[in-house]
């Protein structure tokens, strides 16, 4: 599937009207300059040769050269990726946690006013543009109340978290929250969380609606089952019944949804990153669009695709592990 997508993106860049080199250089380029650039990027070879070059490059982690400065696209993406990963993970945690808590509430208050309000919340989160929500949060919690910084990934006055340094041994994940802990610097950890909070909340809120809806309908079904009634009959508290009996069973479909929503999450991440000047892959793509750097766009799109595939594979494996009825 990754291969199909990769081929599609490859063809898309080359077959759609508009030669990338001409588009990049715009109208004022001399034919010689165009030919030279084509040669440097290997775009003068026949299509199939370019395709195999690209495939083989990809296996080595080489995503081609940037049209802007001929630097390695792979390296640029590699350095932008952790920021996106960190944002994606935190947003997913917020979305799932919010969604599950609110969804359970809705199912307990089935058909009462609280339930209706929660359903409206679910529908509205679906209709709100993620960058608009981001700006509103920036205006209120950021610029208005000064609780959180409104942009960037880390305090520019402080050195970014370094990761683990023992003698000459160096290890860093690129995830600032993890790196600051590895460094043993609590101040940096809190600081990176403060910077992470608004973007993750934005993206998490937008996605939480799906989880609310799913948790609600699964809980409604589970709460009717015999084993729940049996648990109640044994005199267990309502919270214990809801959370440790019913929710456990309603959780598996929610986990599947985490995998399915990951693609939507990454789409939203592009806009969230742009809103908050978060230096991840999304901001990278948008920057490169302004430079008309097509090799870089192609590389970033493919990395997004691979990322989504890996996550859905991981979710499938986790599902099989958690549900003993499924064996691989």
């Amino acid at each position, binding site marked *: *599937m990754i291969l*199909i*997508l990769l081929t*599609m*993106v490859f063809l*898309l*860049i080359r077959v*759609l*009207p*508009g030669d*990338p080199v001409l*588009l990049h250089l715009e109208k004022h380029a001399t034919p010689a300059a165009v030919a030279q650039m084509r040669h440097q990027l290997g775009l003068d070879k026949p299509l199939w040769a370019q395709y195999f070059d690209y495939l083989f490059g990809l296996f080595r982690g080489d995503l081609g050269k940037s049209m802007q400065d001929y630097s390695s696209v792979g390296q640029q993406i590699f350095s932008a990726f952790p920021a996106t990963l960190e944002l994606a993970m935190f947003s997913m945690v917020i979305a799932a946690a919010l969604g599950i808590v609110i969804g359970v509430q809705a199912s307990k208050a089935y058909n009462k006013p609280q339930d209706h309000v929660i359903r409206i919340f679910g*529908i*509205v989160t*679906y*209709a*709100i*543009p*993620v*960058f*608009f929500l981001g*700006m*509103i949060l*920036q*205006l209120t919690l950021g*610029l208005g109340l000064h609780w959180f910084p*409104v942009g960037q990934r880390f305090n520019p006055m402080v050195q970014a978290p370094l990761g683990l340094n023992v003698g000459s041994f160096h290890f860093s994940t690129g995830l600032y929250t993890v790196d600051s802990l590895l460094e043993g610097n609590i101040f940096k950890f809190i600081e990176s969380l403060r910077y992470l909070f608004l973007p993750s909340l934005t993206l998490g809120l937008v996605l939480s609606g799906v989880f609310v809806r799913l948790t609600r*309908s699964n809980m*409604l*079904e589970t709460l009717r089952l015999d084993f729940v009634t049996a648990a109640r009959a044994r005199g267990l508290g309502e919270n214990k019944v809801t959370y440790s009996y019913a929710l456990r069973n309603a959780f598996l479909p929610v986990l599947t949804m985490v995998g399915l929503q990951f*693609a*939507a*999450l*990454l*789409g*939203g991440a*592009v*806009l969230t990153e*742009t*809103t908050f000047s978060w230096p991840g892959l999304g901001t990278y*793509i*948008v920057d490169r*669009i*302004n430079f*008309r750097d*097509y090799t870089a*766009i*192609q590389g970033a*799109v493919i990395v*997004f*695709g691979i990322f*989504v*595939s890996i996550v*859905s594979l991981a979710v499938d494996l986790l599902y099989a592990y958690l549900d003993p009825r499924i064996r691989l």
Partner: protein
Amino acid sequence: MLSSILPGLSTLAKRGLAGWLIIIGAIFVAAIVVMTAISPWIVPYNPTEIPSSPKILAQPSTQHLFGTNDLGQDVFSRVLSGGGVMLQVSILSVIVCLAIGVPLGLFASYAGGATDRVVGLLMDSIYAFPGLVLAIAIAAMLGRGVVNMALSIAVVYIPSYFRVIRSQVLSIKEMSYIEAANAVGAKNRTILTRYILPNIVPSIVVVATVNFADAILTAAGLTFIGLGVPVTIPDWGQDLTNGQRLLTSGAWWVITFPGIMIILLALGFTLMGEGLSETLNPRLEQ
């Protein structure tokens, strides 16, 4: 015409919540369409002209209901006339999706075998991909403008139509009335258009309504990263994008009003989709 709509409305309202969702959604959408259509005659100020003695970033007041933007243009007038781009892009992209997705889904799944597998695999790979990222890549190649935005959105959403149609055709195909039609020698084309298509129209309507909402949000997203229409055209997405630079000066009115309009339009379609799917597939919702 009104006399034929009103009984329809009361039947809808009798369907309970689902009916009301459709009615409220339709009212939102209709109101925005009408507002955009008559905006040239009702705007208090010219939405595109830059005034000669501009009041820059004026707060909302009786003179400028929604305040003014950084060029001194009246935000209220721009909100009234700014829906055109979103509506055009979403309508156009839904038309393209219908024109390609429906026949593709019908033929591939009815033909079965290798055709179905190849098309299905292609559609699944697009479907699994972050839609907005793909739309961004396509729009970046095609360039700015309403048609290009609509095309790049359509590519991303065709698989949704394909999947819904495919699953329905696969089950309908096995029914005995199709077998009977085959037995009496009906042509494949007749079976597809006269026997199968009418049965899947309801599902297509639901997908299309949801697609409208998605198209609006995707269009807003494309505009936000600079792949929208030129700045001279009043557009909510464009105003929102423009307003982000002005946040630090506290000009909340520049983004709030166009943002709310986008939400209302997308909400209208979402409510309609919600109501329709509940009415047409009563089993799905509780």
